[in-house]
């Protein structure tokens, strides 16, 4: 039972953190706006699906609506942010870019409040629609299986894009040395734009598919962003298998503590993060980096 909960929570964490590690891996940006995209996705998912169901359209298609909502909302915001602001900042120090994304995060938080107001949104239909299944005498909502499946699909798709396609190989060149890639005729700016949009879309997808399981309220992204940081840092910033491992570790640790020692729930997550940073500062899946002179 603990393990099942842990796996489900891990799947959610993995979805939430995947885009963060992708964006860091390619662009070397610790992207605080990731939390905003999660929240944007959640709001868009909740309101689109709510509108869809209110018109009486087939509820089974609401999953497609959740998907489309994340897509639309990301395309509305991510390219704007990358082209309009981040593009001019790449030359700056990593920490400065982190502050810039923090500023953007603050702006997006209030943009969300302006668009959707401060009242909570509920759309439980997609969650309740599938009923539940039994495992070892306990029933679990089937919707959670969708989340696990989606997490696996997202991770798989990303791994395939990175290792199995031409685009992925070119991306590797961009990661390795943007300057030389540019000289070789790769449109690095385009790769950054696509990476940022795609990474943000993963966050928005995580948000929109989580929306039916929670009440969507302001401040949703604030918590997600630190959790995702923990996951990504444990695994190693920029590493895809690292994010998966980080999600599994955090997910299991949390579900064990919730079941056996609920008073340390939050504490253990960040304790693990601090321990990993203390012994492997660059995360579990990371290569040694020479000290630059």
């Amino acid at each position, binding site marked *: 039972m603990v393990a099942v909960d842990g796996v489900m929570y891990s799947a959610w964490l993995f979805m939430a953190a995947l885009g963060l590690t992708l964006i860091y891996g390619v662009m070397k940006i610790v992207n605080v706006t990731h939390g905003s995209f999660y929240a944007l996705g959640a709001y868009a998912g909740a309101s689109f699906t709510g509108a869809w169901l209110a018109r009486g359209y087939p509820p089974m298609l609401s999953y497609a609506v959740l998907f489309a909502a994340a897509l639309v909302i990301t395309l509305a915001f991510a390219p704007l942010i990358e082209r309009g602001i981040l593009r001019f900042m790449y030359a700056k120090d990593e920490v400065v870019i982190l*502050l810039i994304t923090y*500023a953007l995060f*603050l*702006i997006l938080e209030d943009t969300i409040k302006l668009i959707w107001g401060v009242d909570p949104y509920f759309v439980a239909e997609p969650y309740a629609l599938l009923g539940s299944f039994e495992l070892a005498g306990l029933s679990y909502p089937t919707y959670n299986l969708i989340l696990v499946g989606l997490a696996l699909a997202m991770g798989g798709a990303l791994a395939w894009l990175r290792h199995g396609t031409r685009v992925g190989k070119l991306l590797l060149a961009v990661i390795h040395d943007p300057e030389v890639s540019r000289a070789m005729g790769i449109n690095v700016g385009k790769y950054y734009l696509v990476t940022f949009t795609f990474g943000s879309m993963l966050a928005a997808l995580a948000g929109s598919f989580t929306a039916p399981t929670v009440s969507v309220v302001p401040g949703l992204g604030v918590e997600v962003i630190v959790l995702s940081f923990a996951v990504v840092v444990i695994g190693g*910033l920029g590493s895809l298998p690292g994010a998966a491992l980080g999600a599994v570790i955090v997910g299991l640790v949390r579900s064990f503590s919730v079941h056996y020692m609920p008073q340390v*729930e*939050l504490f253990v997550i*960040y304790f693990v*993060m601090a321990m990993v940073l*203390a012994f492997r500062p660059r995360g579990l899946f990371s290569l040694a980096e020479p000290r630059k002179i």
Partner: protein
Amino acid sequence: MRRDRTPEVIGVIFLVVALSGPWLPQWAMFILTIAFARGLVALGLMLLLRAGLVSFGQALYYCLGAYAAGALGKFIGVGDIFVQMLAGAAVAALVACVLGFLLARYRGIFFGLLSLALSMILYGLLVKNEALGSTDGFNILPSTLFGIRPAADWVRYCVVVAAAFAGLAAALLVHRYLNTPLGRLAPAIKDNEIRVEYMGASARSAIHVKYVIAAVLAGVGGALAATNVGHIDPEMAYWTTSGEFIFITILAGTGNVIAPFAGALIFGVIHTLAYDLSPNTWQMSLGAALLALIVFLPNGLWSLFARRKAA
């Protein structure tokens, strides 16, 4: 070279606060006290920023200082503001000394992320701690000054004077510290750490010292904030609180020890005004201001002032 007038300016600020205090309305004193409390934290962050380090977890020490002050009142019944500040400083110093051994090895983004994790650990502990009021926190005793309980109308005045005293004394000490060899090492560490080590100085121990100083300042700031507000809760350790401190530090710049206090005051006023005028968009104005600062004034508001003086 121009004579450095910072100590005189600090003295004048203290006199102005102390003398004008009795005529100030209560809310103005509240904002001033909070500005001094936040300014102390920002002063510490400024020390780290001069060495190129950004701590995303300074709320750890702010919160520790506040809880140390609160626990004194709650469990021992001591509400003296100076004792509270000392307790905040002591607890922060102790924790920072230990954590410093770990953190002094980190640079750049990893320094930020590890300090973030540490402050979230404290948040996680406090949220689940029933004895300390979990998410609600607890109220703390009204303050006394050297064991004397001031009349109700004068409590705020005493607190603001104590805050001004602590803040400006710290500013003075940090100002002197910046002119010592250890203090001057900071920009060198930022520029090129390996050269610093070739010169025979240890970057790691220099950073450790700065980290402990920054923590002590934040601890005192937290104790002041606790006394001023009269209530503490775990939110003080959350990462958004650290974000506010970073905002103040960036706003102020690293040019002078008075800058963080000016930055904190500006932040407090903006915060209050924006919250009053449009509670749903104040974060947006904050974000836009931060963005504009990073792009147009990377050395903070103080650089405007310094440039004008140089011209």
